[in-house]
C-alpha cells in the first residue's frame, strides 16, 4: 500500500509550505489558467518573457499540496531559462511525473520528489497541471 509519507516527502512539503512564486507580483506578459475538473484544483500561471527569456514566473490559485509544490519547483527552475529551450527543459519533470524515464537522470535530480507521484495515478494530474498551464501561458500572450 502507498503511504502518506511516501507521497508527502519532506522536499515536496517544503515547497508546499514555502512556495516559490506563489502570489508574487510580476510584470505579466503571458498568463493562463488551468483547472483539474475531477477534483477542483485551480491555478493561474503568470510569466514575464522579455528578450526571449523567462524573466519572472508566478502562480496563484486554490490547489492541493502536490499541485502547489509542483508549481513552486517550476517557478524555481524555469526562471531565466531561454524560451527556445523551454520545451526540452520541461520535458524532464513532466516525464518524471508520468513515469516515463526518457530523460537523463541529471536533468531530473532537482525534481526528484515529484518522481513518486507516478505511483499515485490519481494524483498525476495535480502535479502536471502547473506545467500544462505554463505551456498554455507562454502560447498565450497578454494584450
Amino acid at each position, binding site marked *: *500500500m*502507498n*503511504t*502518506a509519507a*511516501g*507521497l*508527502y516527502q519532506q522536499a515536496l*512539503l517544503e515547497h508546499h*509550505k514555502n512556495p516559490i512564486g506563489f502570489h508574487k507580483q510580476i510584470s505579466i506578459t503571458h498568463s493562463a489558467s488551468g483547472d483539474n475538473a*475531477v*477534483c*477542483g*484544483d*485551480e491555478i493561474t500561471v503568470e510569466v514575464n518573457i522579455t528578450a526571449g527569456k523567462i524573466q519572472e514566473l508566478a502562480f496563484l490559485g*486554490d*490547489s*492541493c*499540496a*502536490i*499541485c502547489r509544490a509542483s508549481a513552486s519547483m517550476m517557478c524555481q527552475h524555469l526562471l531565466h531559462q531561454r524560451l527556445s529551450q523551454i520545451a526540452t527543459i520541461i520535458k524532464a519533470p513532466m516525464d518524471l511525473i508520468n513515469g516515463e524515464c526518457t530523460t537523463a537522470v541529471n536533468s531530473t535530480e532537482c525534481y526528484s520528489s515529484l518522481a513518486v507521484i507516478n505511483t*499515485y495515478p490519481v*494524483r498525476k494530474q*495535480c502535479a502536471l497541471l502547473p506545467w500544462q498551464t505554463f505551456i498554455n501561458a507562454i502560447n498565450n500572450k497578454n494584450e
Partner: protein
Amino acid sequence: MATTSAWKHDFPIFSANAHPKLCYLDSAATCLTPKHVADAMYHYQCYSHANSHKGLYQLSANATELVEKGRNKVAEFLNAPMQSELVFTSGTTESINIVANCFVAPKMTRDANIVISSAEHHANLLPWQEICRLHDAELRIAPLTPSGIIDIKALNLLLDNNTLIVAISHVSNVLGFINPVAEVCQLAQKKGVAVLVDGAQAVAHGNVNVAEIGCDFYTFSAHKLYGPTGCGVLYAKGDHLSHMPPYILGGGIINKVTYQETEYINSPLKFEPGSHNVVGIIGLVEAIDYLNDISWFDITRHISDLSMYLGDKLASLDFVKPLIKPLSKHSRNVQSLPSLVSFQLEGIHAHDVASLLDSENIAVRAGHHCAQPLHKMFGVHASIRSSLGLYNSYQDIDRLVVALNNAYQLFAIRELE
C-alpha cells in the same frame, strides 16, 4: 454499542482475500455490492441469460418475465400508484435527460423557464441548462435555507405561468439533507407546474413514496441502492410517457416501421430501445429484496445511529469545517439526519486529505462531487465527503477521526517546524 455492522459480512469486498481493512465511507458515490446481488447476477448471466422482449423461445420469455416482474418490484419499492409507469434506464443521468429532452424540450419557448435548486448535482443541472440555452429561456435557481434545504418561500416566488418544470434533488449529494419534496410538489401543482425529483441519494434511506410526494417524475440509480451500475429507473406519473416522444431510437420500440415513417409503441418500452440490461435489472431487484429482508426499520436505525455519531465526532474536531453548520442536538430530527457530511480540514486541501486517508485504507470522496456551482456558492473549490452505508460501524467513524487528526497533525506540525 456494537463496533461492527451486522451486515458487513454480506459484502465480499471485506473478505480476507480482498480488502479486509477497507474503511469505505463513499457510499454516496456508489454502494458496495452484497453477495446476494452479485450471486443473483452471476446466476442469471450463467444459467438464464437471453435477449428479453424479442425471442419466441422459452428462455427469452423467461428473461422478459424477469424484467417485467422487476418493473413491478420497483413500482412497489417506490410506492408508485397504479396509474403510473416505470422505465428502466442506464441511471439517474439518463432518466433526467429523458424528461428534459422528451417532456420539457418540446414545450420550450423563449418565454419559458425552468426552476432547479442551487444544490443540484450536475446531472440535474446540465440537461436543464442546455435546453434553456438552446431556446434562449431562463434557468431559475432556488436558494437554500441556512440549514441546507431548499427555501420553499423563495422557490414559490420563482414559479409562474411560464415555468415548465421544477427539478430538485430529494437529498443533496453534497449536503445530505432531505428536501421537503412533497411541499414543493404541492406548491408546483397549484401553479400547474410539473416536478421532477432526483432520488439518487434518497433511495438508500428507504421509505420512498412517490404517491405521497406527488411528483411527476422520480429518478434513481440501482448502484446507490446496493445494486449494479448501468441500471436506473424513471418513474412517471399518470400518462406522461404516452405524450412524450422516444429519446433514443432503435429496436424494440415500434409498432410499425416503413422506410418513410415509424409508429412507436405506447408503453415504457418506448424508452427502452435495444436490448434490455437484464442482468442489471436482476441486480436491482435482488438489492431491493436484500434490503427488504433486512427491514427498512433496522436499516434506518443503523444509519441514523451512525449519522449521529459521525456528526458528533466531527463536531468535536475544531479543525473540521463543515460546508453547512450542523444542526444542534436539540433541533435534530432523526428522520432528517444526513447520512453524509461534506467538510474541509483547516489548512489542508481536500485532495491531500483524501490521499492521506487513502494511505490508511479509508475511502472518502474529495473534490466538488459534481456540484461545482454549489461549492462556489460556499466559497470553496473542493470538500471532503464522508458517506455511510450498511457495512459501516462506529469503528469506521473512529478510524476516520484518528486519520483526520493524523492528517491535520502531519501538515500542522510541519507548519511549526
